[in-house]
């Protein structure tokens, strides 16, 4: 089967050619890459330490020393946002990846096999939906203790539900298509059919939903951290910064504005990139 794959890279090559002509998507990609590079290099390039307090300074508005101002403990906001990006981006990407893998596989199998398997798998999804999220997380924390990996797992384990439903719906429609029946009549195994004929054709909605999941995961992390279940101060994340910013919005608006702008920028970039990818991966859109 490897030969097909080697020859089959053309879908991705085509996608790259098309993406490189979509300036909005390229802009999005550039922003994401920039954010990732900055996050990786933060310990070396950050102007201050992330827990470096200056209580005498207190909250000051942006100045030459502190470009984005300082928070109520006199900590540099730029530094806090840079360190926060490390956490937020990691949570965003890893938890979404977890959700993506589980959700797509679960949905594809349920939708493709159908019948009782589908019924059982989707009832499990329903039960998970019905389970109060808070209780689920608290339970995990109690059993496993507080752990950043657990955080990824817990968020991922909640976010995949919707993904599974979307993919299942797509697959049920695809399953009836004649090209899938043709694959059956060629004698391809179920798994090969799912992998080669079903999943690639669900890419469009999956990509769009993924770009929506990443920011929502980042906010979920903030919510958990706010409850004391996620990241703990003095560590920071964008979500946490925004939460604190909201509390002091009236006196020190820059504490809300700058993390907010950063998160929005990421969100825009992801959406542009997602739309671009969806079009680029659809062979029906023209290459020129």
């Amino acid at each position, binding site marked *: *089967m*490897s*030969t*097909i794959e*080697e*020859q*089959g890279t*053309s*879908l991705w090559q085509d996608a790259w050619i098309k993406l490189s002509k979509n300036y909005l998507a390229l802009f999005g990609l550039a922003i994401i890459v920039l954010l990732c590079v900055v996050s990786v290099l933060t310990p070396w390039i950050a102007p201050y330490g992330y827990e470096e307090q200056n209580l005498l300074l207190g909250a000051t508005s942006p100045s030459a020393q502190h470009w984005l101002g300082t928070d109520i403990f006199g900590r540099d906001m730029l530094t806090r946002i840079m360190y926060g990006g490390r956490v937020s981006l990691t949570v965003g990407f890893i938890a979404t990846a977890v959700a993506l893998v589980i959700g797509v596989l679960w949905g594809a199998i349920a939708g493709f096999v159908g019948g009782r398997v589908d019924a059982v798998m989707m009832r499990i999804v329903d039960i998970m939906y019905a389970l109060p999220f808070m209780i689920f997380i608290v339970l995990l924390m109690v059993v496993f203790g507080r752990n950043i990996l657990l955080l990824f797992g817990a968020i991922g384990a909640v976010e995949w539900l919707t993904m599974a439903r979307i993919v299942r719906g797509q697959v049920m429609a695809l399953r009836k*298509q*004649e*090209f899938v*029946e*043709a*694959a*059956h*009549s*060629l*004698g*391809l*195994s*179920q798994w*090969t059919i799912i992998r*080669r*004929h079903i999943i*690639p*054709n669900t*890419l469009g909605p999956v990509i769009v939903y993924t770009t929506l999941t990443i920011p929502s995961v980042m906010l979920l992390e903030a919510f958990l951290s706010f409850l004391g279940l996620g990241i703990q101060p003095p560590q920071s994340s964008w979500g946490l910064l925004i939460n604190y910013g909201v509390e002091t919005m009236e006196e020190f608006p820059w504490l809300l504005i700058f993390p907010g702008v950063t998160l929005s920028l990421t969100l825009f970039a992801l959406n542009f990139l997602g739309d671009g990818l969806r079009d680029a991966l659809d*062979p*029906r859109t*023209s290459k020129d």
Partner: protein
Amino acid sequence: MALLEVNGLKVYFHTRNGVVKAVDDVSFTVDRGETLAIVGESGSGKSVTCYSLLDLLPKPPAKIEGGTALFDGEDLLRCGAKRMRHYRGNDIAVVFQDPMTSLNPYISIGEQLIEPLIYHPDNQRKQSREDARARAIELLVEVGIINPQARFDCYPHEFSGGMRQRVMIAMALINEPRLLICDEPTTALDVTIQAQILELIKKLQQTRDVAVIFISHDLGVVAGIADKVLVMCEGTIREAGDTDAIFYHSQNDYTKKLLNAIPEGAKTLPSRLQADNLLVEVTNLKTHFIDHSKAGRQHKVIKAVDGVSLAIQRGEILGLVGESGSGKSTLGRSILQLAPTTAGQVSFDGNPLTGLDSKQMVPWRRKMQMIFQDPYASLNPRMTVYQTLAEPLLYHGLANSKNIEQQVRQLMDDVGLAHGQMRKYPHEFSGGQRQRIAIGRAIATKPELIIADEPVSALDVTIQAQILDLILDLVERHNLTMLFISHDLSVVRCISDRVMVMNKGVIIEQGDTETLWKNPQQAYTQQLLKAIPIADPRLERSRLSNL
């Protein structure tokens, strides 16, 4: 003065890939009591022409670039939206192709019928509910709905396709239009129903003295119903004239090509049947489904295939005809074990296939392949021609990474595709070329049996002729045995050695093609054969008057 006079109509589509001249300088006239047929293949602009008259095209991308369309002296193309609403449904009505989707499933048909009477914005004949109801019931009687009082409150799903098309026609007629546009009104219907609907349209046109524009790709249908014919291709008129003149004395190459492409007559190639060499044997096969769509606890069992026995000899082309819902497709899929069978046996080359699980089926899958109806749905849109054709070869180990490319080229030669198109995706091909790709995939594993399920039904008539030639050629060169499933009796006649007629899940008659054609035994077969339209106006008129 003619009722409708179209002059120099130009409709262009402004798309991302440039301007498409969908209709380019088209002129024609239609008078009261006259039927004008517009014939052409898909993409010829025949529907766009008519929809532009009623301003039913999406704008953009469509733009009317020029011309006039005088209806009773007023130009429809420049009359403005308000005036257009007055014309639509009132003076000019449309019957659409698909009766399944052109009725609202949530509103009873009676309610939909009286809608234009009660709600049409500037209806002089605006009337009370009771009067409207009485009027609608009158019309239902006229279009041949039995027991209209009771049927008035029924919902569309309670009607069959033919009955729905009758309702659609009643709906079009309710405001007594002077021009009726029928856009392929019988294409989605079975041949026996088609004959009834055509007869109805003809009768209504005569009694009501309306003008009819009849859009169709089927020259047989046109022959019987039209007074004048307009042949369109690529947005332009290729030929126009009286029906007889077009059919008997055509001067135009394209018209001649269309007429020549109509399948008629018997198979000309000799049968390659090898007697006493049984390839497929089916005994008492039953495939039943449970219909989950009905609410409540009692599931209705649909007996799609209900006790079929048949034998396919090596080398023959066996035709299987039947109307929609007769179970012919399910039978084909059941033989290939693609549909779960309920009872009975299928054996291939002496080996029983029923009861094998999907793993045990794999070696047999290689030897029997399927060609599907819709070349748009039967190819994975995300796989290139190369990937589609290479997949079966690599999966069954018939090629390795060294000779795969050469093997795919060979397959492309076999089905008449240029090598340069190897890396293209399905959407870059026309319907006929896609069907060639699908056929290439089916013969890739060098199968012995091919089941072709309506392989040419979605194709234009000239393309259809080419694909049929290709199929015959491949059967010859690759020693194939074929089960050819179709609702189109003329196609089946010109390709098969032997024919089976299927109705309601059982085979009611079978025999040598020509013998069966000349001397059908069952009443159903006789009725079916009588309903086939003939692309010869004189014969077709006499056929219709004898029905």
